[in-house]
């Protein structure tokens, strides 16, 4: 009787779990979620049918901050630039894409937030899972950029990664519903646009803007810049890698909203001095922390249309004056 009840009532439950587990990798690709843009970037780099020679990586600041087609128009020489930034993309996440590059590319522009330099670079497990479930296969060269634990995790079997990703349906439900409340968020554009996947078109009220500034402004003035040694070392490793495949590597510090006034001038000057000191022939660091005024931001850190134009002008100026 016990065996019969176990078969009749427990096995179907386990069967349901097993069915979901097996189909999760397929469902993950099929159902839209916040990470769908990653699939676009992977397939773009894999297929190499776009003749791009310059690629931009970075977070949503770059998604809204640079229109790579307009940037191309501002350059002296003809180039084909792709904007492969994505929401919350860190340098560790970008490093997963580096395996797709070869000497046919001219330059990689890696945009980073200044405060990320203060922390050790870490690859989130959720990012690793996302990449693997979208078909990414880490090559040997990627091991250079990851810690042994990170590399081990990203190489885990797909079943255990699927188990860890089981809440993707919740993400899909919420992402789709966000469309109702955020008409400005064009997810189709974000998941398909390789040049200007801008997400920030809705103007914030002054009250909401103030609230965000208050939330992200440090509680005390930050006077000195103390970068993470591991982060700096990581930049050097990346620079060496790109030098070995004959691709120029630029690191660009994203603009800081002056309304975040507790990031003081001392802090910015310290940072500028430090970054200058670590520059080398294969590692060019461009400090854009001060290029935008507060009226060029839509919120605490995303450029608005005016900020975007200024950002492109400054970037074009730097690229035109470089080799």
């Amino acid at each position, binding site marked *: 009787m016990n065996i019969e009840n176990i078969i009749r009532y427990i096995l179907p439950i386990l069967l*349901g779990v097993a069915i979901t587990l097996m189909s999760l990798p397929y469902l993950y690709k099929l159902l839209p979620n*916040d990470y769908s843009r990653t699939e676009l970037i992977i397939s773009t780099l894999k297929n190499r049918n776009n003749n791009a020679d310059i690629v931009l990586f970075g977070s949503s600041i770059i998604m809204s901050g640079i229109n790579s087609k307009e940037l191309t128009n501002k350059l002296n020489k003809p180039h084909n630039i792709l904007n492969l930034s994505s929401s919350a993309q860190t340098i560790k996440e970008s490093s997963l894409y580096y395996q797709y590059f070869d000497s046919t590319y001219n330059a990689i522009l890696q945009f980073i937030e200044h405060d990320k330099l203060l922390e050790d670079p870490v690859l989130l497990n959720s990012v690793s899972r996302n990449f693997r479930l979208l078909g990414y296969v880490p090559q040997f060269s990627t091991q250079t950029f990851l810690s042994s634990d990170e590399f081990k995790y990203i190489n885990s079997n797909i079943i255990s990664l699927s188990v860890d990703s089981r809440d993707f349906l919740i993400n899909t439900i919420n992402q789709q519903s966000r469309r109702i409340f955020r008409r400005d968020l064009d997810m189709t554009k974000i998941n398909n646009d390789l040049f200007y996947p801008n997400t920030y078109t809705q103007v914030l009220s002054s009250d909401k803007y103030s609230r965000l500034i208050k939330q992200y402004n440090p509680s005390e003035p930050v006077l000195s810049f103390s970068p993470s040694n591991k982060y700096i070392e990581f930049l050097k490793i990346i620079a060496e890698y790109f030098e070995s495949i004959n691709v120029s590597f630029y690191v660009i510090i994203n603009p800081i909203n002056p309304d975040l006034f507790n990031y003081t001038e001392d802090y910015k000057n310290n940072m500028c001095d430090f970054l200058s000191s670590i520059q080398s022939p294969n590692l060019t660091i461009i400090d854009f922390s001060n290029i935008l005024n507060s009226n060029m931001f839509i919120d605490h850190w995303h450029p608005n249309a005016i900020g975007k134009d200024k950002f492109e002008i400054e970037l074009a100026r730097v690229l035109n004056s470089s080799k």
Partner: protein
Amino acid sequence: MWWNPAFILLIIGSTLIDYTAGYLIYTNKSKLYRLIFLSTSLCFNLGILVFFKYGTFFQDNLFILFRSIGYHPSWVNLNIILPVGISFYTFQTMSYTIDIYRKNLEPAKSILDFSLYVSFFPQLVAGPIVRAHDFLPSLDRTKQIKFDPQSILMILGGLIKKVAIADNLAYNVDIVYSDPSHYPSIIIILASLAFYVQIYCDFSGYTDIAIGIAKILGYNFPPNFNHPYFSKNPSEFWKRWHISLSSWLKDYLYIPLGGNRYTQFLTYRNLYITMILGGLWHGASWNFVLWGFLHGTLLVLHKIILKFKISIPYTRIMQLLSVLFFQGIIILSWIIFRQTNYSLMKQTLRKFLFFDFNFSLSGIGLGNLRIFSTIFLLVIFFTLHFISHKSKIPISQKLIFTRLNTIFLILAGIFLFLFWPTKNNPFIYFQF
């Protein structure tokens, strides 16, 4: 709350003292001695409960009081850890000795039987509070592990309630309630509704699992919840919510205080004492006292309404409105229960009660709030809860007899897996 091997001495101490006290109460003819043994049992159990659960609370409040009059005590700051399950097993052992004293129960046949009653694992950490007269007689029956369908489905239902519904709702509640000033009223109302469902699913889910496991092992526990969210008034609510605690408080506190046997004033007094202490049982914080006071007030008001025979037409619409109105008050009471910080409680209550007509949802971190999955889960909960309430037999019983039970079970497995959070949330009632 903590798992510390040393705390096993507490439960061993409680077991030894109460078993001995129970035996001595039963075998002694002298009323005085019986009272002494009972008092020893109660003092020990209440003593450890008060010390571990309320020691830090009393100390902190004493500090505040002394500082307000200019005295700065230099006592050692006690950081007392709350042992897991202490609120539950102390109440269980007290009910044992009291029932023996009242001659409603014979002592356990052996210390082993009594130890099993006290430390029975399915209900040790978060209830239900099982009475000895429900548990001990079943020890006489031959036990065998029996995977009967009702138990399996009860455990499955409990898992779905706790893991798929409560833990996912917790995600939204935790974010919104940690900074209510940041969100408009509509989000506060949604989060409050989410907590209303979360606490029910968390607690009733746990007790379903406990009751189901106990049943598999051959022990029948009485139900701890009976669709409390269809209650029309506070008396009905407390007959349906956390039944084992409310009946314990009625039998061992309210009735000994006099219950409703004397004057109206004494009845109201007894209700307030019972509910305030019941609130305090949940935690060492003033918000629980306030919560208990609110429920005491509701019960008193209900008694007054009944006394004046204010009758409401018994139509379906009026029944529905009564339920909705009363449940709105329950949602409000859960805000008080949840927000231990007074300032956050005030902000949450203000936005809940005074709608700000702010429907702008940009700039509030919409992506983090999981609004739609929260609404989705609330819809699922209310639908199943309504079906369960309307049905004469439990849904789990219906599932056993339907031909489609295999498909439902597969779907349940799929739902459970997809909604099993990647972050673990402990059972809410573990902290009590």
